[in-house]
């Protein structure tokens, strides 16, 4: 299969796409929210490039996952941190890899427990088209098809790079 | 019935006899060792090759529970358990309901145990009425009906003065008194040995001095009154020293320790198991070592079961709330044999601690295989392992040894010439 794309040029394009999108939707004064860990790295970069004044929050969706019964708590839980009020705020939610959509579902539930946002724009670096829920990125880096038994992972924070890993047994 | 036991290794510690030979029994008596008497025709014979034949075990501390506490045990069930453990003579404690402080209760127990026929019971009478520690029981009447000694058990006397008078009275009629020394106020509220284990487990401790203070008082009064004294269930190293001292000074004091105290210590209170809640408590490993040494040297001449069966509900509660006591008479001999396996005692000496030792302490007509003696005999296999808990007989399953293997198996128990137990 073809080599994984470079992250840096993708991010340039995404920043441009995001700026267009926000202008088109007339979204003003948004806040960035990154999902640990890859989403946070990406959100930082995008924020710095597009809207350096915008605040940045981080989300650890551990307590909102739908697989607690089967898998328990993930090993390293970190506190979520949103240093701004969510009520009536436009949010830009950033994640690295969009797979089934369940992580985003959990993130949305968690965000709505903070308050009532005006809107949520979803930005993802990679969509591997394995959707199980009707969730789509508004701004996307690229779609990828993976060979069976493989996962893609964003490593970082410096440099940001995509790697392919076999699915853990 | 005429019975021959063939080819056993016959060990009679009382006469220092240890030989492979035959035993011949007729009409409840041992009539001959070795060659059968002239004209003796056995109706039944037991092939005892490879087995040990010992005098039936004599257990000086057993709670039969009946009359009155029959949820925990009955005379029938517990003497049957005794027979399975190779015990043919046992002394029952008077803390029944009603307390054994009148001849009628003694007669009831003797009559029922004889009817059950599994083991011979030598009851202890209560030293005081109702075991309340105040008014002396009718010791002579009780003796005449069959009580072999008197005790308060763990129940305290109302004062030293009353205790002294009771001992003097007993001494006057030459009846032995059995002591289980525990100062009630020092022991109050406690359920485990006062030490690092109890401290870590948050259990109120019973200090060693709860035993030694009462023991010191008892020994001084024994000396003053001249009563024949037996101490049952001492648990501390210090008590062993005090006992040895008293014996060295010529006092008439004997002692038995509980079998489980020779095997367990407070470090075993792993996980708060109420099966290990006993009074007096399991003490430190150093105390256990001293108890074992005292048994080895003979300062303690008897090992007893301190059999205390309980119904399940009494133990199925948190540790301190549970009723104290272990049910273990039916494994007395197998557990005792671990002392031989450990090299603490040779087999004849171990058997002495279980037969002529206890019998001699209280002058009981038991614990020997002499010609003309009552045919109370235990046959066991010293090699075949058995699993504790297999076919459990006692009404009380409160035994922490259940599930363990032991290096011996009681095969036959003969009481008064009748086979009362067979594996």
């Amino acid at each position: 299969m073809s080599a994984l794309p470079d992250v840096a040029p993708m991010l340039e394009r995404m920043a441009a796409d995001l700026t267009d999108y926000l202008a088109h939707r007339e979204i003003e004064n948004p806040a960035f929210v990154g999902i640990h860990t890859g989403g946070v790295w990406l959100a930082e970069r995008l924020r710095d490039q597009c809207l350096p004044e915008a605040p940045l929050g981080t989300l650890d969706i551990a307590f909102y996952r739908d697989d607690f019964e089967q898998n328990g708590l993930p090993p390293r839980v970190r506190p979520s941190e949103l240093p701004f009020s969510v009520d009536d705020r436009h949010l830009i939610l950033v994640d690295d890899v969009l797979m089934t959509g369940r992580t985003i579902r959990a993130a949305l539930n968690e965000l709505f427990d903070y308050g009532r946002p005006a809107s949520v724009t979803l930005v993802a670096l990679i969509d591997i088209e394995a959707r199980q829920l009707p969730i789509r990125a508004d701004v996307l880096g690229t779609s990828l098809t993976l060979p069976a038994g493989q996962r893609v992972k964003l490593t970082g924070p410096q440099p940001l790079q995509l790697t392919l890993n076999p699915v853990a047994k | 019935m005429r019975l021959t036991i063939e080819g056993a290794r016959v060990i009679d510690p009382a006469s220092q006899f240890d030989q492979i030979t035959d035993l011949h029994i007729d009409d409840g008596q041992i009539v001959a060792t070795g060659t059968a008497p002239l004209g003796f025709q056995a109706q039944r014979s037991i092939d005892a090759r490879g087995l040990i034949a010992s005098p039936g075990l004599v257990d000086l501390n057993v709670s039969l529970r009946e009359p009155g506490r029959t949820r925990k045990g009955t005379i029938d069930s517990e003497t049957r358990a005794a027979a399975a453990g190779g015990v043919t003579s046992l002394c029952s404690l008077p803390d029944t309901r009603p307390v054994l402080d009148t001849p009628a209760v003694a007669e009831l127990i003797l009559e029922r145990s004889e009817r059950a026929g599994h083991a011979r019971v030598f009851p202890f009478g209560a030293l005081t009425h109702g075991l309340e520690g105040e008014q002396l029981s009718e010791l002579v009447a009780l003796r005449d009906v069959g009580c072999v000694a008197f005790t308060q058990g763990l129940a305290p006397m109302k004062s030293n003065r009353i205790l002294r008078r009771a001992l003097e009275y007993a001494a006057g009629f030459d009846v032995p008194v059995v002591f289980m020394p525990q100062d009630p106020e020092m022991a109050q509220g406690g359920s485990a040995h006062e030490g690092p284990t109890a401290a870590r487990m948050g259990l109120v401790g019973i200090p060693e001095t709860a035993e030694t203070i009462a023991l010191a008082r008892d020994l001084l009064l024994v000396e003053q009154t001249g009563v024949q004294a037996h101490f049952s269930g001492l648990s501390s190293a210090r008590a062993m020293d005090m006992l040895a001292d008293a014996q060295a000074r010529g006092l008439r004091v004997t002692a038995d320790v509980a079998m489980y105290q020779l095997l367990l210590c407070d470090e075993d209170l792993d996980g708060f198991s109420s099966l290990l809640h006993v009074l007096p408590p399991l003490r430190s490993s150093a105390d256990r070592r001293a108890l074992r040494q005292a048994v080895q040297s003979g300062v303690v001449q008897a090992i007893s079961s301190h059999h205390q069966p309980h119904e399940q509900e009494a133990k199925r509660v948190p540790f301190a709330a549970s009723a104290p006591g272990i049910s273990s008479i039916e494994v007395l001999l197998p557990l005792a044999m671990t002392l031989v396996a450990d090299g603490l005692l040779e087999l004849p000496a171990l058997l002495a601690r279980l037969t002529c030792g206890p019998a001699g302490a209280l002058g009981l007509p038991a614990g020997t295989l002499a010609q003309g003696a009552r045919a109370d005999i235990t046959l066991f296999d010293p090699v075949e392992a058995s699993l504790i808990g297999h076919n459990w007989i006692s009404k009380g399953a409160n035994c922490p040894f259940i599930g363990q293997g032991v290096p011996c198996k009681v095969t036959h128990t003969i009481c008064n010439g009748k086979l009362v137990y067979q594996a």
Partner: protein
Amino acid sequence: MTSIPRHLQLNHQGQLRHFLTIEGLSRELLTELLDTADSFLEVGERAVKKVPLLRGKTVCNVFFENSTRTRTTFELAAKRLSADVLNLNIQTSSTSKGETLYDTLRNLEAMAADMFVVRHGDSGAAHFIAQQVCPDVAIINAGDGNHSHPTQAMLDMLTIRRHRGGFENLSVAIVGDILHSRVARSNMQALHTLGCPDIRVIAPRTLLPAGIEQYGVRVFNDLRVGLRDVDVVIMLRLQKERMQSGLLPSEGEFYRLYGLTRETLALAKPDALVMHPGPINRGVEIESEVADGAQSVILNQVTYGIAVRMAVMSMAMAGQNAQRQHNQEAQHATDH
């Protein structure tokens, strides 16, 4: 040597499934608990202070000893995990002919309780329940006799970590009735496991248990010596009964010798933390001004208590779930 078998609190993968005592738990597990609690603290600062982790689960608070404070924090913790909560206050008296502990809990289990939070006057009660009564229900020990109060210890550890950063260079003093204190026992164990190098207990001899050295602590009978340069002071509550049983002559003497006042606190480091499991006896073990003063984190302890209990409950539930799945798979395998 521990008095609780390791396998009782942990499942086949070493995850928590009952929380009975600090004893036998590794430094890694205690640290994981603190980290998880940190995340739950953040939840308490949101508009919606709930997460759906225990949704659909039933948590029973079974309290045989009265304690409004502890029970309400457990209740709040369970509700913030979206669990359904049942509160049972059972007064035991020696003359009452109520149901046995065994039967009470078996009946609750039959009503599909997923977790019991138990406080009982007998040491070893929580262990008894986990081992003999309801091994398949997560048991959280809210205090058993004098033995253990592990959630209190963990909230005390969280307090220390949040206000002092870690345990490596710390000097901690525990003052008061150590003998009767399950909090003291659990705290000594937790501090020791988490690597605190200088743990001190300060008490008169009558209030110290036998073999206290086994906890790896330094013993002081003189407060003014023991408090020197400590970073953290944990005061224990003195109960009135102690005077009656000959352990102490009077409250006054205790306060004079062991009371934490402005004067005695000054012997510790200038920014030393003042902690107390509560409820405090003003003027008996601690001066009012100190309890309410700048160095006191007593109220913070209460907040941290909710987060710690949320962490304990989630971890224990996850451990029980995993155990159940493992048992089902093992059963499935033997059926084939």
